[in-house]
């Protein structure tokens, strides 16, 4: 074995350790929360707090958060608002991105610049006026909160869709046009099937951003009935006595849906994140 090979071997080990450490740090909080969620309450405080297994596992905390604190209601609310947001935001984004990618019109750069600016500004700037609007129209404490969700989800959705449309060769469309298809038919019959993976990626990214939204919901939907996962979870913290067992169980319950989405759609998510940031 020569020196370079030994060196390469050493580096390989160093890299492997580094990656293992990284993975360990990512996973540790989840592991620790899981451990806490099945500990009896008296073991969470004092000396028992730092042991991995208390000798017996209990499901009390899960029972409390699911049946008494109605954590599943917040999961349902999150599901409703995220799905609705995804459906309307992706539809709007498809139309707009197709126009941006295919048509040349005056003001196109202004539209693009506007979308870019919206993706950058602090979300806090829309909250006051939206709150006043919703109070005036009596829309607080309702699922209408999905409408202002567009400020946070629409720019990214358009960005990702434009990237995907740009990858589809123009020639395909031109032949459709020669065959007499209207622009709308071209979009639905020819382009849409080709753009399906892009649409899917956009949908997943939109869904996750909507699922994670906190500021608008906590401001507009103060009623517990309409709390989404992030808001419901944050209220567990603000009680006088912090019941870490319940907090842990709730965290596990609400993380499961996200985990499923990530496991199933890992490839689409990565491609969506990258197409937002890297030009190909």
């Amino acid at each position: 074995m020569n020196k370079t090979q030994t060196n390469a071997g050493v580096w390989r080990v160093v890299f492997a350790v580094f990656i293992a450490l990284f993975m360990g740090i990512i996973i540790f909080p989840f592991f620790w929360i899981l451990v806490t969620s099945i500990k009896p309450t008296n073991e969470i405080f004092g000396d028992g707090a730092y042991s991995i297994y208390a000798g017996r596992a209990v499901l009390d905390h899960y029972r409390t958060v699911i049946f008494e604190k109605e954590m599943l209601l917040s999961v349902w609310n999150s599901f409703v608002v995220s799905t609705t947001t995804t459906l309307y935001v992706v539809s709007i984004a498809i139309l707009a991105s197709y126009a941006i990618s295919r048509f040349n019109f005056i003001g196109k750069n202004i539209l693009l610049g506007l979308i870019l600016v919206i993706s950058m500004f602090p979300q806090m700037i829309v909250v006051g006026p939206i709150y006043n609007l919703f109070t005036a129209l009596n829309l607080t404490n309702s699922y209408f909160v999905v409408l202002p969700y567009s400020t946070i989800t629409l720019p990214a959705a358009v960005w990702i869709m434009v990237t995907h449309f740009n990858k589809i060769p123009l020639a395909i469309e031109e032949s459709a046009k020669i065959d007499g298809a209207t622009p709308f038919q071209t979009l639905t019959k020819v382009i849409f099937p080709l753009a399906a993976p892009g649409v899917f990626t956009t949908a997943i990214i939109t869904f996750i951003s909507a699922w994670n939204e906190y500021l608008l919901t906590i401001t507009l939907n103060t009623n517990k009935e309409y709390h989404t996962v992030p808001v419901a979870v944050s209220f567990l913290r603000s009680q006088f006595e912090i019941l870490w067992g319940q907090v842990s169980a709730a965290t596990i319950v609400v993380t499961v849906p996200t985990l499923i989405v990530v496991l199933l759609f890992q490839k689409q998510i990565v491609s969506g994140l990258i197409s937002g940031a890297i030009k190909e």
Partner: protein
Amino acid sequence: MSKRISLKEFLFILPILVIISIFSIWPIVDSIKYTVFDYRLNDQQNSKMFLDSSFNTSGFNENAKYIAYYLKKDMAFIEAGDQKQEFERIMGYVSEMAASYSEQNQNIKLSGSEAKKIETFMAEVRADVTKLYEANRDVELGNRENIQLVMDDLDKSIIGSNFIGFTAYKQVLKDLRFWSALKNTVLFTSVSVFIEFMLGLALAMIMNKAMKGIGIIRTISLIPWAIPTAVSALMWSYMYDGGSGIIAKLFADIGLVQSAEQLLLTSGGAMVCAIIADVWKTTPYMALLILGGLQTIDGGLYESSQIDGAGKIRTFLSITMPLLKPAILVALLFRTLDAFRVYDLIAVLTGGGPGGSTETLSIYAYKIMFGQTNFGYGSVVVVMMFICVAAIATLFVKVLGTDLMSKS
């Protein structure tokens, strides 16, 4: 070539125009409008934005009637005839004035001369009444104080304009709490983004080499990014907890803090905690973005640099970095802006405490707007934040040459 948009083409962009106009552009314009008014929801005189002054007729009528009523009650105790006459005269004057607005019962706009007339009336009544009660100071009059209070209320029926121009901007520049929030925001942003970038770059370089098991590594890396910030903040607040938090205990055991309880209770400790939680959540995301950039680099370039005899460091500096620069800049820009407007993480983890040491601009603005219901001044803080964000974006695009638009 650009051309005028046809109707059919316009229909494609109509929905997005409608949605962003209502839910993004209009609110920004409205927020900017809030900043030039003394606009406070919990204060009756400032609960709306009044460019001109207006006249609250029902308030005026009610208070005028009370003045007449108190005068009548107190007149019964007066014996001197000329004083009685004076009571009668003022009573008549007040009632007459109240009668001329008794038909209306809401806020109305007044013409200049009318406003002057009412203001003169108020001043006259106040002067006369004060003089009258002064002249009869030896007599026991039951409503001596009440009548003063009612006259104060009467003055409030003319609601002045609460347009204040740029006064609030001057105020914010002298507001120490604003500067402290700005300092905290800049500290949080620069430290977290710097650590995230260095770690992310290192991880991406390694991940780019070790192709075995990349799928599982990528999946695990996505989890912190994908879970809601509020949820991750809560997880960390448990681990930082003085009584049962494992990280707090770990830090105390290795001597970073005096005792586990101290961790979240000292200003430095709380900021470090917020930064660690943010680094945990976003480093993997940063690594994935940079990895995406690395994978677009043509492998042939590395081979030829190896043939040319370039070392590892040389290759990194003259091939990897220049080709990676566009991807890195875009990732850094978006991360910086994200960190700058941080809200959820701090709101759940520390709420801005202890003693405002982790209070960022978003947290401060939200507290003013929804804690004190002062939408005017809260919006000023938000607009200042908006200006900072614009400055950061300009710095990236103009100075560092981040290219955001070329894709389309």
